[in-house]
């Protein structure tokens, strides 16, 4: 027993008692279950486990604080309508928005932020971190940090473009099918069923093996592979709109297909479509990262998070966490987008009632 352990338990138990006293049921539940869990962890993992918990809790508190401030900041600068929507955002969603914002800044200003070029060899391979290199060097002696920053631009940018292509194809076809119905809808439906019964990673591997790993081909392949998912959702969302009487009224008025799509269907499907864009982005992003990790995605020397993990994977066996950083960067962005999407889906489903 030392002061840290005593302080640790005193804080937790004291907090639990206070929460119980002030009838904060949820806070109490969290604190007390954490106390109980700490007993077990303390016995199994010793003081280090308790340190890990403290650091984790500190990070969580930091994230919550950042999220809270960022949400207040957004509410202040947003218009009244957006501000009202933002007020309903839980901290997780606010955190997600903050992360997305940071990544966007990182990606857009990559050349300014990164101290070195993405393919610039500046030291020995696997050189440890020093004052010049925040995270050390990779297997060819390039600055990890700089490559990470450029990776934000390359990996995220590629995933964004691919998602946009998937959306462009899927959403337009989906809406046309919803309006036209009949044979076009039938054939599309069957076709989509078939394409979707090939797992996307497998499909991508098949096409890449044939068409090669050219960047443009990669983007198009991924876009095409994911467009059926977008098609299905758009068809379903637009299908719900198409049965509305105002669509019938517009059809009976003699309006054309583009008017129906532009004026009647699109404004009533934006909320689920935006949420779907987020979700789809996550899938595409993970696929891109996975392909790069397999060595079939973005090709060197372009910096890319997936391939960075692969190239530095050997460090893991020496207990180094450097190769995990780009992987964590991927996970963090996906979590962030998912959290925002989660909130948007909750909002759009809650508003319907």
């Amino acid at each position, binding site marked *: 027993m030392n002061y840290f352990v005593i302080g640790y338990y005193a804080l937790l138990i004291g907090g639990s008692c206070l929460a119980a006293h002030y009838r904060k049921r949820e806070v109490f539940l969290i604190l007390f279950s954490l106390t109980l869990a700490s007993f077990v962890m303390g016995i199994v993992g010793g003081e280090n486990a308790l340190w890990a918990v403290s650091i984790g809790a500190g990070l969580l508190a930091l994230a919550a604080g950042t999220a809270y401030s960022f949400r207040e900041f957004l509410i202040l600068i947003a218009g009244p309508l957006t501000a009202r929507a933002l007020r*309903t955002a839980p901290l997780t969603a606010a955190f997600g928005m903050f992360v997305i914002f940071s990544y966007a800044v990182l990606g857009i200003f990559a050349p300014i932020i990164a101290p070195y070029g993405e393919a610039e060899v500046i030291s020995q391979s696997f050189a440890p971190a020093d004052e010049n290199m925040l995270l050390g060097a990779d297997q060819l002696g390039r600055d990890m940090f700089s490559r990470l920053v450029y990776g934000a631009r390359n990996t995220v940018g590629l995933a964004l473009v691919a998602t946009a292509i998937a959306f462009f194809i899927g959403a337009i076809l989906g809406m046309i099918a919803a309006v036209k119905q009949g044979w076009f809808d039938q054939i599309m439906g069957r076709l989509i069923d078939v394409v979707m019964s090939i797992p996307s990673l497998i499909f991508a591997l098949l096409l890449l093996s044939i068409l090669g790993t050219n960047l443009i081909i990669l983007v198009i392949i991924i876009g095409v592979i994911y467009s059926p998912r977008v098609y299905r959702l758009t068809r379903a969302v637009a299908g719900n709109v198409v049965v*509305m*009487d*105002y669509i*019938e*009224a517009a*059809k*009976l*008025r*003699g*309006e054309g297909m583009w008017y129906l799509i532009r*004026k*009647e269907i699109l*404004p*009533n499907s934006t909320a689920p479509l935006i949420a779907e864009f987020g979700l789809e982005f996550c899938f595409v992003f993970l696929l891109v990262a996975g392909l790069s990790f397999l060595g079939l995605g973005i090709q060197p020397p372009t910096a890319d998070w997936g391939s960075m993990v692969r190239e530095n994977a050997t460090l893991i066996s020496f207990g180094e966490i450097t190769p995990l950083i780009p992987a964590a960067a991927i996970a963090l962005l996906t979590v962030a987008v998912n959290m925002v999407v989660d909130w948007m889906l909750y909002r759009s489903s809650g508003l319907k009632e």
Partner: protein
Amino acid sequence: MAKKGNVLLKIEGLRIEAYADEKWFEIVHGVDMTLHRGEVMGLIGESGAGKSTIGLAAMGFARDGCRISGGSVEFDGLELTTTSETDRRRLRGSRIAYVAQSAAASFNPAHKLIDQHTEAPVHYRIRKRMESQEDAMDLYERLRLPNPREIGFRYPHQVSGGQLQRAMTAMAMSCRPDLIIFDEPTTALDVTTQIEVLAAIRDIVDQFNTAAIYITHDLAVVAQMADVIKVLLKGDEVEEADTKSMLENPQEDYTKSLWAVRSFRREQKPRPEESAAPVVEVKNVDASYGPVKVLEDVSFDVHAGMTVAVVGESGSGKSTAARCITGLLPPTSGRVLFQGEELPASYLKRSKDQLRQAQMIYQMADTALNPKVRIGEIIGRPAEFYGGLKGTDLKNRIDELLDMIELDPSKFYARYPPELSGGQKQRVGIARALAAEPTFIICDEVTSALDQLVAEGILKLLDRLQRDLDLAYMFITHDLATVRSIADEVVVMKQGKVVEQGPKDVMFKPPHHPYTDLLLSSVPEMDPEWLSTLLEERGVDNVGEAAST
């Protein structure tokens, strides 16, 4: 009517809150209620009055997202708001039972009716399983279900709606409760089916001397069922009195206005001369959805300035007839003529002018207006599309239309449909139809989704517009009160065929076709004796048969 026994349920100052937008809102603001054994109380009010919420609170139950925030609910000496959840639960099903609005959704699709029936009595050890099954069959027979010994062994989806509702009443009776809550049990049913269910419920409640709370928005129905009526408005009590005095002498303005609704009646216009050409002629139209034939040899005419009401229950083909006229569903044979000229079967082949001449107003104003488009644009689009109006001309025309439907242009022009009330939305729907300057308008159940007062306003507006603009209306409805108030001609449909048609005054006088007769006589009237008299006339035992023929 005399109080039937000692006090069974006593509710005082009941307050209920609902959770929305991360806040609790009060939706019932201190309601009192006293119910005696064997007494039936009718709870009546428009949507949002809090009827169902109060009904469930009488069981000590609040739906997810609702909570009882104040007052007391005392059932047979037990205070439900403070007692434990287990004790409350033990009352449910055994001493207080519930009959839901939609029996089809409220029966578990995975179990046979009789197994769901016996669940509560077996659980409470009131009856053994076999005894309970026997009892179920007995109740089914009393409720005049066909094949009472076999029907219980079917699954819910194998039984019709009216029968399910009676089976649910039987299920509520399974433990012989002291109190049953009926939550709009006949709202989803057709009028002819409604009669059977009403009669069955009334009989069984009477036979077992069960107290009941009967929740409905239909005055005529509650008049048949209740000893006492309580009127609710937005979570507040308006007044309470026994049925007779409530009907004869309501005290509050709101109640009076509810009672007065059915008084609007328009004189029937003189029949057009034989030589006058009708605006729309439907000639021997057949139609089908896939292999299913839904219309057979339907013919009727609509003359300028006249209203033709097409009446029938759900599935009678009245809306399908409208779809044939508009060209959404091309008829398989027969013709639709407009001002003597044959219309192409599909709307896709019709000219812009042909489309303009016939407009439609929908039942659900919510789905008839695009929620993301401003009112001004909704009304302006037909004027722009057909008339080619632009700029100030268009703006003036929209203002004129908004004036016509009695909405202030300066207030409503820039609003979106979700900001409007049901009646206002329906008015916008009318304005959109008028914007095309049509000669013929199809009104598809335009008042059935509206509260009665609002509905009357819409009917009056439609009547005035018809006189001002010499419009021809085809009025689709299942509500005979609406037919009485505005129709000139009546077409009665059943299972895709026209059963009878003629001028309103003739149609509402006997002798009728037997189906018209059944339909007319099945519409509940305000007279509390109406159901009894009707059942006597028909002979109680063949109620079911009469409806199923």
